[in-house]
């Protein structure tokens, strides 16, 4: 019956699911069912406050504000089970944002009185609703407020939306309280930290020593450095913050207690430490300050923490509402810088290269589509040399260099390539002429191994050294592949071999068994088919671009299929990549190893629809390849 149906629905929806059944029953009796056709403006910005909390039963809505410049800023998309109208309901003034149905939407409306009663009696409900509504609202509107100044764009806001736990350095450097001041100072120097946590004999934090303590209490007062460090440490109560607190609370505490370091506790255990420097990085347009930081390092060991922090940059960018393509671009840029830095350090160690060389990357790195820690995919082209002695010297030099880089990148957290596509493997470290021969071999004799290698290698781009070498190889490839129908036919076979899942959501092709049963491999089933289609077109046209997005843009003027589908394919790519980044970000947050398996059941209606549309689109592009090359048939 209708009340039972509503109770069953509420049981699945936070925050109502926290309530007991009797309560849900009385809430259900006070619900009204409302229907909004697609495009109905449910709440109008600056309109009268709403009298109901809406709970979406079916459909989706968009929350957005229109700025003074008439620009529309989307604050949130919400679908089944989400609520709307909360802020407007508890605020007594006007509505702050527009709410529009973007699908035909059925909503339960809960009247104001009941909502107020819930708020006073259930702190859980209050906290949930405030978090769900206020956090997104502050998040996006802050961005809007600051968007006019390019230099301060979003940075202040991050302080209000980033939790301390995300920013804290998890590895806390400690020293025993019995250690001497000098020992403590030495540890700080070798570990390059400005604060040291002093532990008692149980290993519990007993106090903290900072750069400033050394200056104020040791140097200025002429204290003997053989004294135990406990003499100068700041003693409990230590200034701490909870990992879930927002950054500005930590800053407030620093200001209030006049300290530059705060210990971060998670469930009352030491979780990490934050310094005012961390906040400075957060406040400065963060990816940029990371880049600067990378530039200033001169040792591999000091690069390690930076590369670990790249994951954090992704989170910040996600929060900023950045597009997936921008996120991957920034990540690739930072990774490029790390690679360059590693190579610079290597060149310092082994001396200048005997002949010019170019370090190339391929795979996702070559396409600038990296997200979280991706495998090393790299190679090395060096200039052809006639002189055999010089050639031997070059080979030896580049072997040492490549192995150094491989190990350094591993230290920095870039896993080895399982297929051994790395410059440390002599196959992928050779003179330009040998590379040219290699590519010619693949194109002229397209065995399945050759196709497999070419889909990885042909996305190459130079990142360091004599970039002209990479450009010459690219030009050679464009020339080679002209009119090579047999090669493209074989590549087409590969491109259409994996079809994206089609049809209604419930029938999404998912893993049938094993660890990832009923999950969808987003990378293999959706992303790779799209990338492969675009690569094929791009190679056909001999284009130099390697990133899928740039390829699509370049193809729009040249390729009939992309002319027709290009804009939609761009959206599909952005959407699938974003879905993947969000998924992996959540996994990392939960302390899991990131993978590509998403649970289609957990997608919102809107996401399901978009994913379906994207898959249909990819399939359409594949169809055009089938028509052109009729793969599977002998030509």
């Amino acid at each position, binding site marked *: 019956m209708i009340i039972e149906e509503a109770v069953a629905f509420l049981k699945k929806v936070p925050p109502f699911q926290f309530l007991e059944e009797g309560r849900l029953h009385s809430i259900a*009796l006070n619900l*009204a069912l409302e*229907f909004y056709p697609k495009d109905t403006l449910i709440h109008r910005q600056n309109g009268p406050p709403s009298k109901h909390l809406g709970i979406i039963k079916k459909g989706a809505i968009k929350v957005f504000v229109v700025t003074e410049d008439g620009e529309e800023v989307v604050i949130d998309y919400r679908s089944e089970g989400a609520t709307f109208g909360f802020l407007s309901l508890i605020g007594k003034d006007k509505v702050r944002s527009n709410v529009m149905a973007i699908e035909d939407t059925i909503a339960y409306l809960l009247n104001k009185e009941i909502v107020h009663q819930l708020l006073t009696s259930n702190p859980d409900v209050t906290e949930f609703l405030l978090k769900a509504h206020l956090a997104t609202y502050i998040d996006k509107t802050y961005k809007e407020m600051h968007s006019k100044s390019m230099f301060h764009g979003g940075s202040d806001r991050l302080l209000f939306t980033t939790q301390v736990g995300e920013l804290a350095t998890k590895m806390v450097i400690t020293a025993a309280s019995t250690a001497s001041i000098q020992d403590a100072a030495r540890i700080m120097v070798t570990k390059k930290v400005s604060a040291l946590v002093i532990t008692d004999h149980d290993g519990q934090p007993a106090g903290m020593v900072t750069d400033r303590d050394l200056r104020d209490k040791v140097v200025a007062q002429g204290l003997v450095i053989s004294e135990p460090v406990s003499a100068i440490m700041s003693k409990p109560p230590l200034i701490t913050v909870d990992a879930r607190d927002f950054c500005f609370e930590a800053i407030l505490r620093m200001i209030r207690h006049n300290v530059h370091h705060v210990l971060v506790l998670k469930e009352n255990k030491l979780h990490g430490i934050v310094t005012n420097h961390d906040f400075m990085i957060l406040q400065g347009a963060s990816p940029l300050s990371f880049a600067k930081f990378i530039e200033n390092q001169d040792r591999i060991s000091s690069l390690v923490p930076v590369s670990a922090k790249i994951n954090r940059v992704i989170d910040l960018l996600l929060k900023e509402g950045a597009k997936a393509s921008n996120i991957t671009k920034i990540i690739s840029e930072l990774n490029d810088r790390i690679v360059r830095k590693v190579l610079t350090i290597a060149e310092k160690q082994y001396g200048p290269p005997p002949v010019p060389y170019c370090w190339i990357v391929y795979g996702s790195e070559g396409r600038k589509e990296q997200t979280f820690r991706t495998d090393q995919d790299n190679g090395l082209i060096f200039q052809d040399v006639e002189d055999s002695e010089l050639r031997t010297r070059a080979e030896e030099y580049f072997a040492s260099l490549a192995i150094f880089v491989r190990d350094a990148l591993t230290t920095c957290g870039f896993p080895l390539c399982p297929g051994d596509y790395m410059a440390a493997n002599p196959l992928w470290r050779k003179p330009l002429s040998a590379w040219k021969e290699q590519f010619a071999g693949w194109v002229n004799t397209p065995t399945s191994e050759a196709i497999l290698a070419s889909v990885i290698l042909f996305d190459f781009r130079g990142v360091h050294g004599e970039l002209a070498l990479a450009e010459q190889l690219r030009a050679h490839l464009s020339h080679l592949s002209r009119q090579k129908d047999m090669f493209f036919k074989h590549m087409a076979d590969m491109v259409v071999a994996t079809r994206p899942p089609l049809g209604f959501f419930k029938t999404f092709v998912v893993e049938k068994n094993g660890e990832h049963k009923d999950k969808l491999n987003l990378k293999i089933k959706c992303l790779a088919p799209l990338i492969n289609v675009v690569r094929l077109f791009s190679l056909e046209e001999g284009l130099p671009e390697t990133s899928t997005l740039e390829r699509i843009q370049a193809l729009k003027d040249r390729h009939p299929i992309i002319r027709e589908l290009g804009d939609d394919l761009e959206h599909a790519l952005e959407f699938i990549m974003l879905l993947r980044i969000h998924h992996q970000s959540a996994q990392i947050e939960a302390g899991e190893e990131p993978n590509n398996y998403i649970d289609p059941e957990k997608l919102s209606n809107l996401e399901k629809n978009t994913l379906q549309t994207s898959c249909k689109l990819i399939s359409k592009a594949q169809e055009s390849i089938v028509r052109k090359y009729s793969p599977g048939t002998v030509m």
Partner: protein
Amino acid sequence: MLRDLAKQLLEGLEGLQARIYSTPTSLPGQRGPESPTDPDTLLREARYVVFDTELTGLSRRKDSVVSLGAVLVENGRIPLGEYFYRVVSPRTALTGKSVVIHGITPTEASDSPTIEALLPEFMRFCKNSILVGHFVGIDKHFLDMELKQFNGGRFRQPMIDTHKANTWLRNRRDNPCAFHECQAQDMSLAALATSYGITAQNAHNALDDAYVTAQVWQRFLWELPLLGLERVRDILAIAGV
């Protein structure tokens, strides 16, 4: 931070100290506009009682009402707490065939009050409302029959048939091809609900069917004004019974 904000906001609310209902806001039928529906009322502003009956069978003379379910549509919304549902002890015997459909057993039915006892309550629930139903002519026939037996009267309220309204809408939708396709279409409530993506539970329970019909009516209240039917009189002219 959020907790502080919550506190501030809640402090601001103290004055409101709302009246809380743990039961439906009022007993069915005790509320409603003061005057009967003016045919000039805007469609969305009228008060509708959407109802359905289950019968002992489909013979217009031999059969009678075995259950009665109704929900309200007010300002385009369906307040869930204000429903009406009663099982009736029918005047005529339940046929095995109909038991299979509506699931009301002869024992359950015979334990229930007679329609005479329930009609006044239902009439109060419907007061000052327009009645709406799918193929409402059938329901009206049986209710009138009961009423005639009861006090010699009949339902005077205007009634709207969602089936008629749907046919009218289909004939006016943009695509003329759609019209022909629809000719062969299933005219059942279930089919109509499905076409609107409305999920139906327990078909042939009078209350659930009334709820589904009300949701269809909710859609019509958006669609009809777009096609020029703005007032109650307009809809009565095309789908009145």
